[in-house]
């Protein structure tokens, strides 16, 4: 099972951080500092604090982007761009929401602005998994991977707002009101988008089995 298919509570374990354990002003190591403290540290001029934030959140940001475009190359570029834009706008983070939520907002906006609805994002069959070890996998696992690829491809074909709503709701478990704040919509619109996303996904998955 891929990491992001697990419940959120199981996914928040931080990846190993290969950053030198330095003080974060208050006398505790930077690697254990909370996100808000790292933001303050960064705004005070210590850009290595931003390195820690990147290492902490890069997987989630990449996954948001990947689900939008359904291919590694574009997701990689979008994730880099999202972090750069987050850095530029860091002084606007007021701590009213979790840093991760704010970062999702930046990433989603980068995706919404960069991904053309006309561009049909595709995941080439030969790159659906890294690495390709299907030959060594049991049939059930091969089937699961193929189903997952089909679902990802279908999600990537949803209209952008529906896609964004689905990604934030399904995979990042954000409540409707936070999604509404990120997308600049009402809670009602977010729920409607989620409904239509599921309805469209159903249609797309049915089409793919024909």
């Amino acid at each position, binding site marked *: *099972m891929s990491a992001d298919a697990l419940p959120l509570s199981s996914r928040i374990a931080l990846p190993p951080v290969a950053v030198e354990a330095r003080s974060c002003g208050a006398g505790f190591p930077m690697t254990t500092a909370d996100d808000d403290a790292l933001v303050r540290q960064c705004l005070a001029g210590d850009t290595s604090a931003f390195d820690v934030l990147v*290492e902490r959140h890069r997987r989630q940001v*990449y996954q948001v982007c990947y689900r939008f475009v359904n291919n590694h190359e574009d997701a990689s570029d979008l994730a880099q761009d999202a972090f750069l834009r987050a*850095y530029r706008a860091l*002084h606007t983070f007021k701590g009213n929401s979790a840093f991760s939520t704010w970062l999702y907002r930046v990433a989603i906006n980068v995706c919404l602005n960069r991904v053309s*609805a006309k561009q049909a994002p595709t995941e080439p069959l030969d790159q659906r998994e890294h690495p390709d070890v299907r030959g060594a996998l049991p049939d059930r696992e091969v089937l699961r991977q193929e189903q*997952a690829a089909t679902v990802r491809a279908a999600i990537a074909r949803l209209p952008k707002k529906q896609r964004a709503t689905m990604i934030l709701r399904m995979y990042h478990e954000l409540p409707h009101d936070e999604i509404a704040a990120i997308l600049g919509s009402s809670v009602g619109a977010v*729920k409607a988008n989620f409904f239509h996303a599921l309805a469209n996904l159903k249609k797309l998955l049915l089409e793919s089995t024909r």
Partner: protein
Amino acid sequence: MSRGTAKGAPHLADQELVDALDGTLDARRLAHVSTCASCTMQLEEFRTIAGEAGAAGVPEPPAFFWTQLSARVRASVAEEPRPGSWSLSWRRWSRPAAAIAAAVVVAGIVVPVTGLWPRTATNSEPPVAAALQIQDDGDAGEDVFAEIDTDEAWALVRALAEDLDHDEMEGEGVSARPGAVNYLTSELSAAERIELARLLEEQLKGRTIPGPAS
């Protein structure tokens, strides 16, 4: 999407179906589901789809990718000025004016006053609504953002927008939604952005903005 009515009670509306999936549907409406085959079936279908979607993880990239990504971000950040350093310097003197200027930008007041606005998505749609429409259906602004990142004149507008405080704007009588500045960014040409920035600077300095040319 309306799904008609069952005997005695209407079928679940779209949002109610979402609430039912979330487990937040009120008891009275939930009672309807238990007696309505249509709603039960739709809810089960949605549960199945949501389950399939939830199980579709993202492929794990090669192990070296994460350090590569961090290195790329670090390199791009190294070329940037300290975050907020530019806006901090002028915020000291422009804070009271920021809300006014931001109101001008977001509400698009400058546009009808000066005749700057050469094109909108539709004649009847306000800019913000048009922006939301564009985000759903089009690809506006794909590369404009990269271009304006280096546009010093536009930096003033961006900084103003970034400093927007929702409550402060409400106090100014302006209601705006996220995406409005992105809309302006993607819709204005470089020359128009420069002109808008000039007008804002003048307003911030308390000068009189010249009237429309025609």
